[in-house]
């Protein structure tokens, strides 16, 4: 699955998803429970705003010195016998990984969750050379066996599926015969995947945080799947977005604390694992060979622009979990594996405006995302920046809107024009007013009045009332 989810034009996706009652119930339930839990752990921790400021400072410093830290990281990985491949593009990354798989004559590959490997569309490349690629994160596993149903949330990708749907998929594809009880479903996945871990030739992981000072990678899971992916196969390949790096263990622990609380309301997840290079000499398990693939794929184009703060992201999905728009339209509506507010900002940057031009407008700018972001990315402001670019550079704004905004500028830049223009509002509206309200509006009001009444302009503007009053008349 590449970044883009092929599922039709924006409005078709939105309409379908607005009618998906299960998904909407699941998302609303997740958001409501998550809201309480997240606020609980944050309050328990204390000084949250200081934590956010610290996390922001760490991320900003790292991005400003990204070349230095990637240099340090790669040197330290190599010192420990690991191999580092810097991949400017998705193709380069996939080519390298394919070469490793061919060299190892790999037949089976187990993977732990990695958004960047989905972004670069790695799995089909490996399948094309005859590898069986098995997703081990339970959510990703469910989606994979369901004919590659796309993820709808960056942390809980199978959020849109109910347990009956999961049972049906297991039945059809795995010969499962038990019930839809989540415990039984999970136990079945455990059994199936246990065999895969023990027989895989290569383990592929993502990277929550690479640690420059030691050449280490940090993996954060609740299931323990990443640990089995890296303990048992002989070869490990870790793929990381180039910005997913911290200077030392001390910054790693700060950001992990922010991640686990913001993502799932936990103090720490069950398994946080820091891996450095291949196994130590004399170790029985752990990989014999370690490869780190560092991916750019458009991230460097974001550096040095007003969008640079989006690279601070630690992929916690706190923004997704508080977004009132995501709440109703769900992840698939975004047409990208990156959904919610972070997806609306990132997808046009990595994928261009042609495919994602509606996303920056699918927001009421309520700023819940900005408020929730543990590393203080000003997400709603970046959405406004996208709109600016769409208007000014991309020329993709509708003509009617541009004309209306020109009129706006004229009307509001001059008070006399404004006063003149607004004086005629009551008469301009008159044809549409009934009982003091507008029920079927013209032009832009039409969309409004599809579902709402619109007030008729007051017979007397406030400013006229005030002026008359000043002169001694017109008590209210």
């Amino acid at each position, binding site marked *: 699955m590449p970044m883009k989810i092929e599922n039709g034009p924006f409005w078709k996706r939105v309409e379908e998803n607005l009618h998906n009652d299960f998904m909407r119930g699941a998302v609303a339930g997740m958001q409501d429970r998550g809201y309480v839990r997240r606020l609980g752990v944050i309050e328990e921790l204390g000084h949250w705003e200081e934590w956010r400021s610290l996390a922001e400072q760490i991320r900003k410093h790292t991005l400003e010195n990204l070349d230095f830290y990637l240099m340090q990281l790669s040197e330290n990985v190599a010192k420990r016998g690991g191999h580092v491949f810097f991949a400017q593009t998705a193709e380069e990354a996939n080519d390298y990984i394919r070469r490793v798989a061919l060299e190892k004559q790999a037949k089976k590959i187990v993977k732990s969750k990695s958004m960047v490997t989905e972004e670069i569309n790695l799995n089909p490349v490996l399948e094309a050379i005859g590898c069986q690629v098995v997703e081990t994160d339970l959510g990703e596993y469910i989606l994979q066996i369901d004919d590659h149903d796309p993820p709808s949330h960056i942390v809980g990708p199978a959020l849109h599926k109910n347990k009956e749907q999961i049972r049906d998929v297991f039945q059809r594809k795995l010969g499962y015969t038990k019930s839809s009880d989540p415990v039984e479903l999970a136990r079945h996945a455990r059994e199936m995947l246990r065999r895969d871990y023990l027989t895989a030739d290569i383990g592929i992981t993502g990277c929550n945080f690479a640690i420059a000072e030691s050449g280490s990678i940090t993996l954060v899971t609740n299931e323990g799947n990443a640990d089995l992916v890296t303990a048992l196969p002989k070869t490990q390949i870790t793929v990381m977005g180039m910005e997913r790096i911290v200077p030392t263990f001390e910054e790693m622990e700060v950001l992990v604390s922010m991640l686990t609380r913001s993502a799932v309301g936990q103090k720490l997840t069950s398994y946080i694992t820091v891996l450095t290079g291949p196994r130590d000499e004399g170790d029985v398990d752990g990989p014999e060979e370690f490869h780190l693939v560092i991916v750019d794929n458009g991230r460097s184009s974001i550096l040095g622009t007003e969008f640079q703060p989006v690279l601070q992201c630690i992929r916690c999905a706190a923004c997704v979990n508080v977004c009132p728009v995501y709440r109703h339209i769900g992840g698939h509506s975004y047409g990208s594996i990156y959904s919610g507010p972070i997806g609306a900002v990132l997808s046009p940057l990595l994928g261009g405006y042609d495919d994602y031009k509606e996303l920056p407008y699918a*927001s*009421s700018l309520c700023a819940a995302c900005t408020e929730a972001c543990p590393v203080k990315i000003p997400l709603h402001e970046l959405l406004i920046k996208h709109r600016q670019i769409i208007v000014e550079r991309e020329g993709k704004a509708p003509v009617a*809107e541009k004309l209306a905004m020109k009129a706006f500028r004229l009307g*509001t830049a*001059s008070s006399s024009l404004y006063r003149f223009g607004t004086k005629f509002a009551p008469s301009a509206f008159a044809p549409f007013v009934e009982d003091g309200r507008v029920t079927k509006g013209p032009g832009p009001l039409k969309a409004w009045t599809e*579902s709402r009444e619109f007030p008729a302009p007051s017979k007397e503007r*406030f400013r006229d009332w005030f002026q008359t009053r000043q002169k001694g008349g017109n008590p209210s």
Partner: protein
Amino acid sequence: MKVSLFVTCLIDLFYTNAGKATVELLERLGCEVDFPKAQTCCGQPAYNSGYVKEAKEAMKQMMRAFAHADYVVTPSGSCAAMVKEYPHLFHGDPEWEEEAKQLAAKTYELTQFLVDVLKVEDVGASLHGRATYHTSCHMTRLLGVKEAPLCLLKNVKGLELVPLPNAHQCCGFGGTFSVKMGPISEQMVDEKITHIEEVDADYLIGADCGCLMNIGGRIERLGKPIRVMHIAEVLNQRK
């Protein structure tokens, strides 16, 4: 105390009662209220849609209109929040940066002004009924005004104030979002109304006319018996 009223385009044209209530309330509390006629619009509609050049022309007009004001008070949380952005938007502009800073520093949303500047929490208002308060997103998250409205409403005689469930969720206005993304906006406002009904509120009180227009417009269309009031109108209610 001399206060210059920034009434906002929505109130000027559609919700004049909120503007009138604001003036009367401030006067009763001892303020001398003037209305700089040159004021137009804070620039939000254009700015939020990505039309920065156009928005900035409106903003300059605002800075001209209020250049001589001591305090600028507005019954709109989102408009006050927009004005607070002016210094950031005119940063580096030799002609307007200083003006922007000055205007931002002296601009207040109404409840913020009453509580933080006039130091008043009981304005002697009275309104009987069961009410819930809608926390507008920009006022809460961007302007940071959370407590002032509640302090004031708690002292309104006869008013039974109940918390709104899921208050942190946007009502779906978002300016042009409400028309550009109508079907999504409709779902958001419907959920908001469900929560208002959950607490059996007779009144829905808010401090931002955009939100009230959105929620009120939908309430009317659905024929719900919920009365929507601007907080200025509530605070100006007397026996």
